[in-house]
């Protein structure tokens, strides 16, 4: 499969179809896998594809440093393809400007599969220009994709609050979660806005609650559960729980799942007069 | 075989036991199991709500609690007075958690108001009119009925939420399935004076006379009812009506279940039709003609 990936990328670069391929690479054979930007056909040999290819590369599609390289091809797993759908829906990416190479994926993470991969429904990416490889892997039958949240919600509200206090206590506000998220593409983040200060920048509990609530809610109905925020958090904060909770809410109330269908209008910014409202007096 | 809870109420175990016989026979033939509520009590009709509001909810509440306990999702109460009281309570319980708690405490049985309460017509609808139609052995071709709903089957309309309170058609539809005709007439939802049978008999005789007269005038050869009290006034009291008004009516009065049963091939005896005061033989008219 790797040879096919490299060949596809080489052809694209040689033909001038694209100027850069956003891919996975490794600086040394036992070092970590990280994103690379291949601009020369010969450098396609640097591309790797293995169980360490966690990164959701679509996050680079909105970065000015990467955009300045010219037309891009990008490697996406099924999960990453969903964030691409959202980026297109939100006018951040012109779909025709990107050559999307889908990778058949049986999950990342070794020796243990990443949590998201265990409930994955998109082993074969959709909406891509070309798919490399194939897999029979399918969504596990009857799997509850919100099991994590459901389990967590068994705790009392006080226990939940205590949990989050413990988690957010560690947040240093490095914004790695924001940096890695493909859908955090604002030119200026609301947390950096200081007239007025909407969210305290201090890494106190107060500021950290406001920040993390905001980060989560800004992804409401948008997050595609790629899990990158949680993976990169140096403080090990379980951010995916908040994202999953909102994804569950969007599905439960509005039958909406982000990034599944470019034609379905996003859940925020649209409405149905019949939306239920049992909590409003 | 479908299974319904069954709340007979005092009437069907007393003066109107002919009604119970008719209902039971009919249901048996239709393979409907009626599970009589174990240890049911009075529905509190007529008296309770004028004395004590909580009592008027607790009495039916207990019956609903029994139905829930015994796992009945639908409860047949053939007497419209009973079904109205039960529905009223059910509605009140559904709306208020506080009331559910209060009544559950009083009757010492958890009661939520989840049980659906249905009247005699509804049970036929549940069974399915096409099913009944298919099971008809003796189409009631000779019947031209005036369907008499009386006051409580469709009222209070927002409580019982059954059929159109002023122009009901549900009994007519059942009759159509039996091959019987029904007439257009004017007194289908008028009161028969049931509550005043003993206190102001004159009023009752006056009202019932109007009902029977109008039915006749519109070409009916019998009356069909789904209420034990209506039956008492129209059937048992028909003689008194004739005497008081100097007329001769001789108007048979059937329970709806009687006609269903007869069409299904049951005998007058099985349905206790032979125990009516006015000889109810219209259904067999063609035979006599022949």
């Amino acid at each position, binding site marked *: 499969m790797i040879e096919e990936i490299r060949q596809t990328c080489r052809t694209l670069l040689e033909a001038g179809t694209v100027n850069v391929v956003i891919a996975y690479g490794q600086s040394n054979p036992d070092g970590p896998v990280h994103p690379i930007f291949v601009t020369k056909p010969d450098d396609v040999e640097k591309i790797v594809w293995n169980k360490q290819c966690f990164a959701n590369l679509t996050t680079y599609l909105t970065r000015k440093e990467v955009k300045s390289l010219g037309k891009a091809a990008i490697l996406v797993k099924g999960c990453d393809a969903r964030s691409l759908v959202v980026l297109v829906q939100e006018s951040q990416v012109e779909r025709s400007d990107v050559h999307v190479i889908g990778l058949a994926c049986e999950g990342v993470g070794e020796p243990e599969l990443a949590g998201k991969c265990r409930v994955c429904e998109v082993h074969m990416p959709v909406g891509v220009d070309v798919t490399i490889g194939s897999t029979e892997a399918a969504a596990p039958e009857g799997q509850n994709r919100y099991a994590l949240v459901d389990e967590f919600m068994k705790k009392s509200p006080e226990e939940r609050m*205590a949990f*989050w206090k413990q988690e957010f206590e560690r947040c240093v506000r490095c914004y790695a979660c924001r940096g890695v998220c493909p859908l955090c593409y604002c030119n200026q983040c609301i947390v950096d806005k200081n007239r007025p200060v909407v969210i305290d920048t201090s890494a106190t*509990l107060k500021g950290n609650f*406001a920040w993390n*609530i905001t980060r989560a809610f800004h992804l409401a109905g948008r997050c595609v559960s790629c899990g990158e925020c949680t993976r990169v958090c140096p403080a090990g904060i379980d951010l995916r729980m908040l994202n999953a909770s*909102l994804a569950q809410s969007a599905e439960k109330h509005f039958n909406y799942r982000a990034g599944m269908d470019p034609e379905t209008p996003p859940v*925020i910014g649209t*409405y149905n007069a019949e939306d239920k*409202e049992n909590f*409003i007096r | 075989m479908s299974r319904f809870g069954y709340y007979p109420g005092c009437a069907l175990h007393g003066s109107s036991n002919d009604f119970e016989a008719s209902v039971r026979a009919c249901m048996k033939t239709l393979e409907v199991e009626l599970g009589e509520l174990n240890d049911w009590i009075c529905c509190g009709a007529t008296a309770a709500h004028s004395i004590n509001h909580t009592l008027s909810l607790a009495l039916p509440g207990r019956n609903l609690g029994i139905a829930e306990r015994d796992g009945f999702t639908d409860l047949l109460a053939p007497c419209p007075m009973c079904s109205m009281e039960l529905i009223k309570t059910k509605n009140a319980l559904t709306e208020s958690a506080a009331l559910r708690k209060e009544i559950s405490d009083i009757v010492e049985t958890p009661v939520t108001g989840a049980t659906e309460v249905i009247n005699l017509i509804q049970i036929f609808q549940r069974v399915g009119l096409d099913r009944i139609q298919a099971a008809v052995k003796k189409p009631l071709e000779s019947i031209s009925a005036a369907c008499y709903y009386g006051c409580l089957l469709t009222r209070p309309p927002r409580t019982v939420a059954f059929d159109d309170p002023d122009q009901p058609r549900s009994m007519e539809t059942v009759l159509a399935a039996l091959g019987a005709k029904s007439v257009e007439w004017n007194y289908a939802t008028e009161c028969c004076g049931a509550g005043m049978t003993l206190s102001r008999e004159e009023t009752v005789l006056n009202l019932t006379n109007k009902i029977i007269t109008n039915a006749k005038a519109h070409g009916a050869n019998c009356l069909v009812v789904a209420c034990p009290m209506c039956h008492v006034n129209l059937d048992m009291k028909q003689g008194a009506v004739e005497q008081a008004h100097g007329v001769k009516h001789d108007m048979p009065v059937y329970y709806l279940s009687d006609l269903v049963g007869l069409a299904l091939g049951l005998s007058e005896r099985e349905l206790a039709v032979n125990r009516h005061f006015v000889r109810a033989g219209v259904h067999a008219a063609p035979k006599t003609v022949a």
Partner: protein
Amino acid sequence: MSETEKTAFEPKIVAYVCNWCTYLGADLAGTNRLEYPSNVRIVRLPCTGRIDFNLIIKAFEMGADMVVVSGCHPGDCHYTAGNYHARRRWTLFRDLLETMGIDLNRIHFAWISAAEGKKFAEFITEITDKARQLGPYQAYREICE
């Protein structure tokens, strides 16, 4: 907290209301002299559509014990659809808060029209009583220490 302290406690309540329905509903409560507790501070906004979740968080940060969000009934929005948009956001936001263990008894949503002065007064009375019973929103105050 002892019982006496609890009864002496007067909650801080912030009400974010729309200009065209609930604000006028509150005006009507005034015109009709319908008395209610004085704890509520009304913040007038053009429409419930304008009411952002950050405002709710900020109110708690500033020591509010309860937050009220209220606007026009569905179909009655002065701007035709602001309240529908708001309703969607609140639906999701409440679920997020619930996951975080934030007490949903501290946030109340209502549709109160310009004609519902009585509803406004009753609603404020009711939630003020509730806020008094709940006591200070200690959990969020601790976060903000």
